């Protein structure tokens, strides 16, 4: 029985490797010294207090929230239809279509970013939050499709058939039977796609023009050592909110699986 125990030890070490680097950001965001190194000089909340005074930061936050919301709605709407098509219906070219929708996951970021910049300028769209929305929706779509596919997987099709047999129309059946059952999946997809957009940097860097999103703003601050504590405080808030959103998403995703079984 020695093998499992070394393996377990390795697993816990691996968790430390995964979590420790990320935890240094919040740790040093409370450091009163401006250099990120041990020993920690003292504890302070000043860096967090100063965040609210920065207008460009607040503007970037609003940009990110706006982009994230629109991206979440667009990609979840398209993902909802596509996921339903992929799970419920069989048609020629289905596997190719499913593969195509997953493609944004594996194209290198720099190629997506540079080629979209060229496309948008070619058709006369100046880099702005609109082009960021279009790009992020592309990136978020595979996430919403795969989440919603598993939501529909767990959905018993005979419920819909029963509704049709009882004379309920297509739209009403979707609204009153399908939607309530897959709604936790929809919420999970909205949360995940929002976070994908909220955290994304490279595409936004290329496509945002002079309307920076929050990661683009952080990038512009990283170069200045004097701004470091600010970045740490802001980064810690972002880390915490991303994790909270996704734990919430996971909760809804689980609920969607659970309700499908009933």
């Amino acid at each position: 029985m020695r093998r499992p125990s070394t393996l377990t030890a390795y697993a816990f070490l691996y968790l430390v490797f995964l979590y420790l680097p990320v935890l240094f950001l919040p740790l040093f965001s409370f450091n009163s010294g401006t250099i990120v190194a041990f020993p920690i000089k003292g504890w302070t909340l000043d860096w967090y207090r100063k965040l609210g005074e920065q207008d460009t930061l607040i503007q970037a936050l609003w940009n990110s929230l706006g982009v994230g919301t629109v991206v979440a709605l667009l990609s979840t709407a398209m993902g909802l239809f596509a996921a339903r098509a992929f799970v419920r219906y069989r048609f020629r070219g289905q596997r190719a279509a499913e593969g195509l929708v997953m493609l944004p996951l594996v194209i290198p970021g720099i190629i997506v970013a540079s080629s979209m910049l060229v496309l948008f300028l070619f058709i006369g769209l100046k880099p702005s939050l609109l082009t960021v929305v279009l790009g992020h929706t592309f990136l978020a779509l595979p996430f919403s499709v795969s989440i919603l596919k598993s939501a529909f997987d767990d959905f018993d099709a005979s419920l819909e058939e029963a509704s049709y047999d009882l004379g309920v129309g297509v739209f009403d059946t979707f609204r009153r039977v399908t939607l309530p059952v897959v709604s936790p999946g929809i919420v999970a997809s909205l949360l995940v796609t929002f976070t994908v957009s909220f955290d994304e940097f490279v595409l936004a860097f290329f496509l945002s023009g002079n309307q920076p999103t929050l990661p683009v703003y952080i990038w512009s601050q990283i170069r200045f050592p004097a701004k470091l504590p600010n970045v740490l405080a802001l980064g810690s808030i972002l880390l915490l909110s991303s994790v909270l959103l996704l734990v919430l998403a996971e909760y809804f995703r689980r609920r969607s699986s659970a309700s499908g079984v009933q």
Partner: protein
Amino acid sequence: MGVWVIFRSEASRGYTLSAPATAYVGFLVAAPLLILIAYSFWTQTYVTLDKTPTLKNYSDAFADPLVRHLMLRSIWIAGAVTAVTVALAYPIAYFIAMKARKKTIWLLLITIPFWSSYLLRVFAWKLILGFNGVMNSALLMLGLIDEPLDFLLYNEFAVVLTLAHAWAPFAILPIYVSLQKIDPSLLEAATDLGNSPFQRFMRVTLPLTIPGIIAACLIIFIPTVGDYVTPALVGGSDGKMIANLIQVQFGAANNWPLGATLSLIAMLSVGFVAIVFVITATRLGRRIR
């Protein structure tokens, strides 16, 4: 309700419902690619774009030793990242699939850090590995070293370490799925036939997880070749990759045709390496079996 008659057949419903998503992704893959190809045959002097088709960008790119150097280094670094990440991840996937009691908790624990901003995770490594950074200061404080180590940041090592951290779940999940699929009776049969646990692993478990390993390698290798953030933040001048050069063409150098050409060359190189890899790995997998 008359409109719905056309949507009666299963297939047409499938097409209609999946059309928005596939059309959107299809358009945003194909259209930029076509324009990128067009741009790669054009030339640009300062702000004027000359649309006379020419192969000048390609001959420039292939003649430039910097391009060749950065392309080869990107592929080498991506290969190293892939190997390190998969090697570190395999035991974890094995642990979760075969040994762990609370599988879902472990899977959740593994994926949570991935959901934090990629930019911030890379930035965290920059702070950790820096000359006056977290690691050096901690080691100094503990008295393990007398002066800061200067080989931690701004080199290929930093890039590989940072990306092995960033890609962890992408390696663990596909391998985990392929381990889950193994029929336990195969393992029992191997034991009954007198295989030691090690032999059983090499003859049954490992060959059956080759599809998972291939998937993990592709998911990591392809995006890594074109990674911009990590080489820019922790790579220094020794760790720069092709994406950094492409960004310069679209930014400061303002030579979009050359940038487009480099993007295409990068894409083709990645595709070529990936195809060669899949073929070799599949053959190798058959031979073990």
